[in-house]
């Protein structure tokens, strides 16, 4: 699991790669929350292009960050999920609260 965050003028992209499950979601959550709270970006995009596996732990991760971004006055987007990860996203109905590109 790898996380690389780039922030330019309040618009941040968090590039995730590897697998998201319950085991590693905890660490990702801590790192992302630390960034959101300290940098207070207006927009955060979670780039899932490098994610090779994700179960419902990823849904919890995205929903939690969406909530925190709203609390901090910003908004979250998700981009580039692989087709099989898009199916998990679709099943959860998360598309109703988070834009997925």
């Amino acid at each position: 699991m790898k996380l690389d965050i780039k922030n330019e003028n309040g618009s941040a992209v968090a590039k995730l790669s590897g697998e998201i499950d319950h085991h590693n979601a905890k660490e990702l959550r801590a790192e992302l929350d630390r960034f959101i709270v300290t940098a207070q970006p207006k927009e955060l995009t979670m780039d899932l292009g490098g994610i090779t596996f994700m179960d419902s732990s990823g849904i919890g991760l995205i929903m939690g960050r969406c909530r925190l971004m709203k609390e901090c006055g910003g908004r979250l987007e998700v981009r580039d999920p692989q087709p099989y990860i898009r199916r998990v996203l679709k099943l959860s109905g998360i598309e109703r609260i988070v834009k997925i590109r």
Partner: protein
Amino acid sequence: MEVINEIKFTMPSLSVNEGAARAVVSSFLVQCDPTVEELSDIRTAVSEAVTNAVVHGYRNGRGNIGLTVRLLPDRVIYIRVKDKGCGIPDIEKAMEPLFTTAPEEERSGLGFSVMQSFMDKVTVRSAPDKGTTVTMRKRLFAHD
């Protein structure tokens, strides 16, 4: 039940073993030459079942999780995930989408929904303080 091939695997309820369980299942399925989608569906369902055992079954301590994967006739994959943890008092409620007893861990309550969507059949047997057994089946597409 005629079994063509079978693998049994026991692991302690450590979260790192969620990935190990997926790897075991992936290795076993190589012989069936599944599609990318089938492999992904089964890996995801197994991940959900094993995570449930780690997070909920053994919420009060550590125990063992048994994983059985079988290849049955007609390219049917049978998977059983068994724990001897705290059990589920109300299975129907536990299987409701978005129901979770661990919101502080950001559990989305979608584990059983994912298993049911990605597999053909999911059965849950559980008794308080005895444990939980999840069995799942999926028939793979026939090859030419």
